[in-house]
């Protein structure tokens, strides 16, 4: 297993080697004897067992998949539903053993991690960049409740996440017999689309189909099933013992709502009258894979497109009609066509002016008109509506509008240049503008094809910078981590899910299979899920995790004035997240000056490309970078929709 031996990787820069660190520490002590002690410690360290990936991790890819035949357990029956429905991946921690084992034994790619919450976030992220259904699982009690924050984030992002958990036995209900008891379904109330505690063994197949009917139809949101032992452990000799045991053609339909021709005609008239029409392409465009229909309509009628969603890239940022990096143009729009905007802003949250008219295209009539008043609602699946509009509309030109967007895009680039000029002037620490600009140059203006690298956009203060610089040139190139729910902790969990999606080449990631990914997080975010670096290393997911380390929560600038309060927002300074990564089997880089960032990124990318080893780049910043008056430009604001958006 030499391939998996961490010490077989190329030696990194001597400036951060363990040997040099020990030597410097000893010299710093000023005692010659201490050097000898350091060398002895080093020798002792070299004799200790090395970090090593177990053989079974590698062997899982070639292991034989057992036959799925009766007699079967309830867990097996459910796993067969998952397989037949194309469940794309499972992310879990130990627990819910019968169900997890059955899913893995049915050949569904399964991954273990260090925390159920991070695994649920991984599943959510996998969904957001593939459009496929993924599952997470935990044991009853704490394993289940650990997933709750991630389920809430998935619910806010409208992710079709299958949440699984074991839940003791029916006969033990209302007791405190043994441990880990809890009522799960009330806990996910308001955080899911559908949920069920499975208590009748003969209906396990039926409830599996309930789950997938909900996950695959309408507006996606999580589905939560909890399994009692009476169900997961039940034994069935033949299908005759199961109720409602049907093929999926019998229990759900692929039919989708199509628009009323009258509505399409009215929309066409409104577009025909508009001088500056714009489409807001959101979540539904991604899940209905409507990007080709979107582009065809936009180009035929010269309608601008701006994105706002839990994932980006449904419309390429470098298209002349893209307004995602032209925030100044948004108030000019006189007609806004919201397509698949499941998470609705209220008046004033999007930048459009008070005279803009609104068309909303959405599969759910119950949601149309919520928050933002409409001038026309169209109940339809997104692709069908866009294709119908394309067929109805004559070719149109809005040259002045396109020119206005181009000018606004130019002003935004000038603004970025000024932000970078200010950020690069700080030499004693790494400013977020430096990270954002140089990462952008590396991804889009260097040796890599600009559409290649999938990025996990996490973090808080750093994200206000990187969102402005990151670009999406193809569907799901950016996973927008904090979308709507605003959780900053899941970032490394998200990285695991996106990394798995790209490694396996699932959905829109297929052309980029196997390539390294990049993730952005902060020191606060890393604190929640940083241990999943170990999961990345175990499965050899080539992810480069950039940690913006400003020694504080991003909330410090707004709460710094009272000494009684300020400390709540602070960490110890100069923490070594890179060494945490090394201790977990990954590569670490500590970047303390602006000019060190790009070489560190080059080294990490080389390791990721050639050896599939993940890295952490610990970028030492300082909390004062968030204060505009002292360290301009400070904490940045945002405009939505577009590249800066994450509320809606």
């Amino acid at each position: 297993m030499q391939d998996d031996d961490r010490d077989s990787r190329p030696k990194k820069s001597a400036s951060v080697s363990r040997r040099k660190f020990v030597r410097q520490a000893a010299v710093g002590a000023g005692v010659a004897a201490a050097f000898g002690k350091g060398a002895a410690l080093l020798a002792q360290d070299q004799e200790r067992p090395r970090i090593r990936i177990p053989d079974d991790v590698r062997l899982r890819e070639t292991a034989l998949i057992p036959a799925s035949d009766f007699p079967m357990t309830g867990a097996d029956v459910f796993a067969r539903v998952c397989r037949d429905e194309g469940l794309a991946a499972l992310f879990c921690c130990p627990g819910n053993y019968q169900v997890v084992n059955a899913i893995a034994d049915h050949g569904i790619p399964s991954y273990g991690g260090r925390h159920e919450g991070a695994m649920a976030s991984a599943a959510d992220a996998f969904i957001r960049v593939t459009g496929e259904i993924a599952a997470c699982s935990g044991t009853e009690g704490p394993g289940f409740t650990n997933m709750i924050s991630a389920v809430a984030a998935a619910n806010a992002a409208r992710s079709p996440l299958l949440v699984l958990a074991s839940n003791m036995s029916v006969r033990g209900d209302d007791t405190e017999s043994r441990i880990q008891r809890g009522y799960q379904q009330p806990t996910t109330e308001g955080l899911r689309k559908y949920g069920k505690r499975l208590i009748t063994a003969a209906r396990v197949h039926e409830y599996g189909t309930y789950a997938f009917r909900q996950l695959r139809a309408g507006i996606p949101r999580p589905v939560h099933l909890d399994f009692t032992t009476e169900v997961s452990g039940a034994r069935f000799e033949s299908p005759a013992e199961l109720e409602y045991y049907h093929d999926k053609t019998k229990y759900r339909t692929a039919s989708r709502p199509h628009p009323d021709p009258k509505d399409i005609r009215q929309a066409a008239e409104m577009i025909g009258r508009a001088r500056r029409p714009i489409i807001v392409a959101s979540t539904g465009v991604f899940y209905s894979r409507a990007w080709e229909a979107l582009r065809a309509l936009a180009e035929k009628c010269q309608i601008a497109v701006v994105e706002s969603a839990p994932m980006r890239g449904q419309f390429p940022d470098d298209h002349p009609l893209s307004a995602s990096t032209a925030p100044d143009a948004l108030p000019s729009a006189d007609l806004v066509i919201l397509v698949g905007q499941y998470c609705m802003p209220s008046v004033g949250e999007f930048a459009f002016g008070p005279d803009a008219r609104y068309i909303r295209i959405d599969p759910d009539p119950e949601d149309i008109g919520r928050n933002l008043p409409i001038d026309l609602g169209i109940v339809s699946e997104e692709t069908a509506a866009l294709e119908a509009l394309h067929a109805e509309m004559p070719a149109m030109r809005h040259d002045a509008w396109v020119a206005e967007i181009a000018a606004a895009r130019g002003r935004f680039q000038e603004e970025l240049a000024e932000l970078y000029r200010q950020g690069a002037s700080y030499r004693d620490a790494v400013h977020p503008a430096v990270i954002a600009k140089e990462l952008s140059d590396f991804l889009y203006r260097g040796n890599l094809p600009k559409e290649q690298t999938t990025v996990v956009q996490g973090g808080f203060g750093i994200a206000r910078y990187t969102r402005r610089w990151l670009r999406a040139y193809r569907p799901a190139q950016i996973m927008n981590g904090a979308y709507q729910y605003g959780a900053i902790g899941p970032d490394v969990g998200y990285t695991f899910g996106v990394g798995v999606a790209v490694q396996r080449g699932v959905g829109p990631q297929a052309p980029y299979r196997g390539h390294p990914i990049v993730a952005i997080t902060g020191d606060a975010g890393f604190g929640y899920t940083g241990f999943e670096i170990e999961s990345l290393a175990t499965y050899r997911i080539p992810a480069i995790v950039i940690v913006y380390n400003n020694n504080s929560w991003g909330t410090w600038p707004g709460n710094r004035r009272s000494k009684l309060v300020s400390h709540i927002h602070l960490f110890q300074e100069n923490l070594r997240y890179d060494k945490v990564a090394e201790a977990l089997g990954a590569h670490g880089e500590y970047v303390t000056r602006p000019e060190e960032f790009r070489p560190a990124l080059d080294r990490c990318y080389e390791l990721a490309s050639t050896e599939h080893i993940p890295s952490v780049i610990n970028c030492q910043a300082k909390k004062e970078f968030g204060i505009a008056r002292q360290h301009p430009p400070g904490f940045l604001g945002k405009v939505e929709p577009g590249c800066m958006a994450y509320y809606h």
Partner: protein
Amino acid sequence: MARNGLSVVRKTLQEYADRGIFRGFSERPGRSGKTEFTFLWLTEYPLHFVCDARNATVRFNDFLPAMPVKSAVYADLRKFLRERVEGDLPKHRMVAPGRAAVKFVNRHGSVSLVLTVYRNQYRYGVKAILNLVNEIFLLLQRSHTEYMWEHFNLPQE
């Protein structure tokens, strides 16, 4: 003519309320023949829109608090307003000099936006000042987040 100006202003504002852009839209007589309209729009704080038809002005009264004349944020706002009058922007983003004039009034840090209507073009004036206020709040959210946290209760997250 003044009464006609008020009715145009009232009708124009009412259209926004009817479309759901404004919430809690109400009207009451103000001092010296002015009329004050109150509504919720871009933030959770009510805006006070005053029509003074005798002087051909419409204004958002004291809509930005705690903004000293010498502050960076106020300087940015004045620059923004200059660009809307003299800048090189598309016509629909400008305040046409022949149709209206616009200025800030800062009294002890409390800022009002005042638009003078020319040639009785009240409908144009109302629409122009509304679009300006929309853009002013966009500017504040984009470039002066701390001000928005402190004075408009916007989330720090």
